């Protein structure tokens, strides 16, 4: 064989191999949403919906931009959410037909929260914390959806994320999901009290505390062996996210009553650790939960030793 022919043959083999890999990656990154049969008949509990909205601290990210004249109490979205990957502009969660959830079905909402798939069938970047939300019960998701639908509609058009190679990167999220969404979902612990389990659910599923407090592996998958162990700030901010283990042993809080007061009042009662790195906005939403839920969260958190 002449060197020219050999080179051409090599190129053909590599070209074919590359195409094969591309096809595999394309198939592996394919979004596969749930079908309508995944949605049970359910009478929504609106109060529970609002509780989940507060526990999920949705407003902290889905707020209007600073300085806009939109009502800051409504999750009309648009405020910049900066990450090392790029800047995202979270979705309008009010029921506006064109720009909000008005045109969504309950199935669309469940697909977004559980699988990170948009109504258009594309992947959401995990700046939207569906790896945690997927542990929420379907009934809770439907209650939250129903409550959001009762809010006044605000017009707030979506703004495209500012991420390099957006379309390719978005499809690539499908590959990452193959690892991240294979992690076990949050499960209750039969040996613990009902209130401990309530707290664990609120913290790990809607509360998505682990999105910042649990460090990630080099593949950006949450490292369950270091659950709530703290680490670098995922937003690329200065300083670290604290370890939530041994909060009593390390004299951060005296007991569950003390942590409950801290979560309800934050620094207005002198709890200064709850005002940095974005915790203030989170604490303000947690403060609006029923006291029993804040206490349950405290009980669970202080059991991490």
């Amino acid at each position: 064989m002449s060197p020219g022919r050999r080179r051409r043959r090599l190129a053909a083999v590599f070209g074919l191999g590359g195409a094969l890999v591309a096809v595999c990656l394309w198939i592996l990154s394919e979004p596969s949403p749930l079908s309508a049969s995944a949605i049970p008949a359910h009478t929504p509990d609106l109060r529970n919906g609002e509780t989940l909205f507060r526990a999920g601290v949705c407003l902290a990210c889905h707020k209007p931009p600073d300085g806009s004249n939109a009502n800051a109490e409504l999750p009309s979205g648009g405020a910049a959410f900066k990450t090392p990957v790029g800047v995202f502009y979270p979705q309008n969660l009010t029921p506006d037909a064109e720009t909000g959830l008005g045109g969504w079905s309950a199935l669309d909402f469940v697909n977004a929260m559980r699988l990170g798939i948009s109504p258009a069938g594309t992947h959401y970047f995990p700046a939207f914390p569906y790896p945690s939300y997927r542990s929420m019960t379907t009934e809770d998701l439907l209650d939250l959806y129903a409550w959001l639908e009762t809010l006044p509609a605000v017009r707030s058009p979506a703004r495209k994320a500012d991420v390099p190679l957006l379309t390719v990167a978005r499809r690539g999220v499908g590959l990452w999901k193959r690892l991240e969404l294979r992690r076990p979902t949050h499960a209750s612990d039969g040996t613990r009290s009902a209130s401990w389990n309530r707290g664990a659910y609120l913290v790990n599923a809607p509360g998505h505390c682990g999105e910042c407090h649990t460090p990630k592996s080099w593949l950006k998958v949450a490292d369950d062996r270091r659950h709530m162990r703290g680490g670098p700030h995922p937003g690329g901010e200065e300083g670290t996210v604290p370890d939530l283990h041994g909060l009593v042993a390390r004299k951060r809080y005296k007991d569950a009553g003390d942590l409950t007061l801290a979560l309800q009042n934050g620094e207005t009662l002198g709890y200064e650790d709850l005002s940095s790195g974005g915790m203030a906005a989170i604490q303000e939403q947690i403060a609006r939960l029923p006291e029993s839920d804040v206490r349950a969260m405290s009980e669970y958190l202080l059991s991490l030793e």
Partner: protein
Amino acid sequence: MKVTSHAVSFAVLAAFFFGTTSVAMLASDPPAAPDPAKARHDAMEAVGSAMKSLAAIAKKEAPFDAAAVEKNAGAMAENLEKASKLFVAGTGGGESRAKPEIWSDAAAFEKAMADGIAAAKALQAVKDEAAFMPAFQAVGGSCKGCHDKYRAPRK
């Protein structure tokens, strides 16, 4: 005679050493060590410790005591004033939790600091228990607003 001359030379030597070392010590004594980051950190720690005593009253762990409130809120105002003069441009980074917004948004930061001082002074003037809680929460809210924007998490 020999003994005395020895004693004299020792005395002279001792005086000489003592003299030079004390002069050297005086000379090495830093004329107001210019480390604003450390000085403001210490001032803010003093604010934090005053806050602890006040928070104990707010949480009803300690009884309301007008004299203690005046003393602690006074210490708070004083140390906040001290700290507010120590945010010298270029002294962020390293150990400091001061965020760059302090300098990029200087006017807003100075106003937030002045509001904090005013809130601490208002708390200092509180004489009765009924007025304590609102004044205390105004101070806490001021700490929170400022920390949220201008202080990075622990490193």
